[in-house]
């Protein structure tokens, strides 16, 4: 990614998050990636709910 513009880079955006936020963000993307082929959204929010409970028990 180019970082010579005024906008923050993706790296900078991710680094601005706390450790727990980063872990959750990574988990969110994993869940969404694994469910890309599914037409139905059912179950995705459950998986995300479970993920946030693990990050903040």
């Amino acid at each position, binding site marked *: 990614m180019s970082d010579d513009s005024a906008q923050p880079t993706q*790296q900078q955006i991710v680094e601005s998050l706390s450790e727990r*936020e980063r872990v959750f*963000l990574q988990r969110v*993307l994993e869940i969404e990636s694994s469910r890309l082929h599914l037409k139905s959204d059912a179950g*995705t929010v459950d998986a995300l709910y479970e993920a*946030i*409970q693990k*990050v903040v028990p």
Partner: protein
Amino acid sequence: MILSRISLENFRQFKGKQSFSLDVNDDKTVSLLFGANGSGKTTLLNAFTWCLYGDVSEDVEEKHRLATDIVWQNAVEDSEIPVSVEIEFLHGDSRYRARREGSVRKRLGHEQQIQANFALWRTWAGQTESLDGPQEKMNSILPKRLSRFFFFNGERIERLAKDEAYAEVKEDIKILLRLEQVERALKHLPTLKTRLGGDLRKHGGEEVGALQDEIDENARLRDQNREALEASGTELQVLEREIGDIRRLLEEHAAVGPLQGQLHAAKENREKAIKAKEDHVQLRKVLVGSRGHIGLCGKLAEKTAILAEALHQRGALPAPIKREFVDSLVAEARCICGTDLAPGTAALASVEEWRARAGLAEVEASWQRLSGDMKAIKDARQDLRSHLQEITAEIEKDLRSVSYWDGEVADLTEKTRDVPYEDVVGLQSKEKELDNRLFDVRLRIKGLQEEQENLFKQQQELDTKLKKAQVAAGVASTTKERIEIVDACDGALRQILDLRSTEMRRRLDEKVKNVFSRITIKPFYPELTDDFKLGLYHVGADGKARPVAKGTGENQVLSLSFVAAISELAREVAREETLDSSLDAQGHFPIVMDAAFGSLDRNYRRDISRALVELAPQMVVLVSTSQGQGEVYSELQPYLNHLGIILAHTTAGTDKSQKLEIGGHELAYIDAKSDIDWSELLEVEL
């Protein structure tokens, strides 16, 4: 995903168990397989997609007949024929084995639909495990929708560059460039937040509860607004596609437009001439109906006049002068013959009788009128005749006009026959109507976007308030913390999506331009628009860029450039990606091409071979001899790791056998002496 091997069992032409190595070795990234027409190149391409996704392409006939025909024919009734395809590949730090297998039962001579199972094994750090949800996992490695970029038939690939493919391609690219999952996360996180809000309302007290109600209402409105935006976006896409189709047709028919105008005018003139002829025929009918009897009188009037004149000349016609003359004879008492007309004489009585018979003035006048009437009838007849002659002349003129316009219509129809008929005028009016609708939809979208922005600001304010709100320790505090994390991720993903969308389009556009310029000799350049539409342009003498009407060749080159660009960008993205460690090296995809170069000429084949081999981490190329020998082989040869033949065994007869000479090898290509029809995968030693 780098392919290592494909193994087939009784899959279509490939009888029994067969296997072919596909692995790569440093710069040796190409597997080249030659096959005659019908030998099974397309089948082999479909073996990949059937194994990985359970699908075969639309151009495969008799899709349900997966088992090899000869094996099927030789099988005994009620027996089961195993059918399978197995693919081994590397992905990230693991080795995978994907296998789809089933069996076909022969019952009453019918081949039943195969019920195949899919399994996926992963070997990592020396341990092999069978993966749960194998199809789901496979889709996370290479989503099915994306496979069209990497497993394709060269003769059909130009579809990628066609307008109607844009919407789908855009979505596919989002997956490849990791935009789709971000978009989906941004859709799901607010729902998660609402759910967490429910927990907070339960445990957080009155103030937090009220705040949460406002947050929920805001979320509901944003949801509603987002749905309206999505619907409007779809409507916009449909309208743009329709207007694009119309503009393309108008462009294609630009030359035929004036001809169509002339044809319209000729048809109108012909109609006018027909109408004028019918009017004149009608007028003639009315004339004959009302005054035709005059014509039927023939020479009656003339004859009557002559007769009356003759009577008059002979004195047989009573006239006023005759009575006065007789009166004078009586007064003189002497007839013109000299006889005395004395009173009481027989001579006087006779003359007086003549006098009485000399006729009344009325009779005379009647005869005079008759003479006049006869002239009037004669004149009317003459007038009728002239009028009828005039009308007949007009009708003849009309008929000549009808015949002339008939000829014109036929000529112009002939001239427009070779182009598909499109009503240019109708299309222009439809274009205008769609333009107006487009304007309305864009305006609506702008309004919805502004509304969404406002709701978003409102949401941020509410989030800040919630953050500051005091809650008791325990469940409420934990939930509040969870909500804050979800909020932070939502904000970060929003920024990431914005960044990625702009950046990815720019980079992909740059790459497509680069690849295309290396392949084509034409002064065209491609451009990927903000909404991922791929167009081809030409800069005219006036310095203005205009879209190029793409032919099949241009579309194929453009599509192949696009695939090459995507392949390279996907690799770059994967290298740069640090966020999502589970998807390491996801950007490495093989390109498996059947009929690789479609109908392209030799130069294009050479340049495309060169471009693809430089950009793709692995290539499996399935070609016929006419497509693959010469420049294609020369370009690919330095990168060859595997060379293969799909040997077609046929029952066609000995004279059909063929050999192929390539790289110093003479290889059997078609074996026409076989007792049965089947195909064999043979690896040639390099």
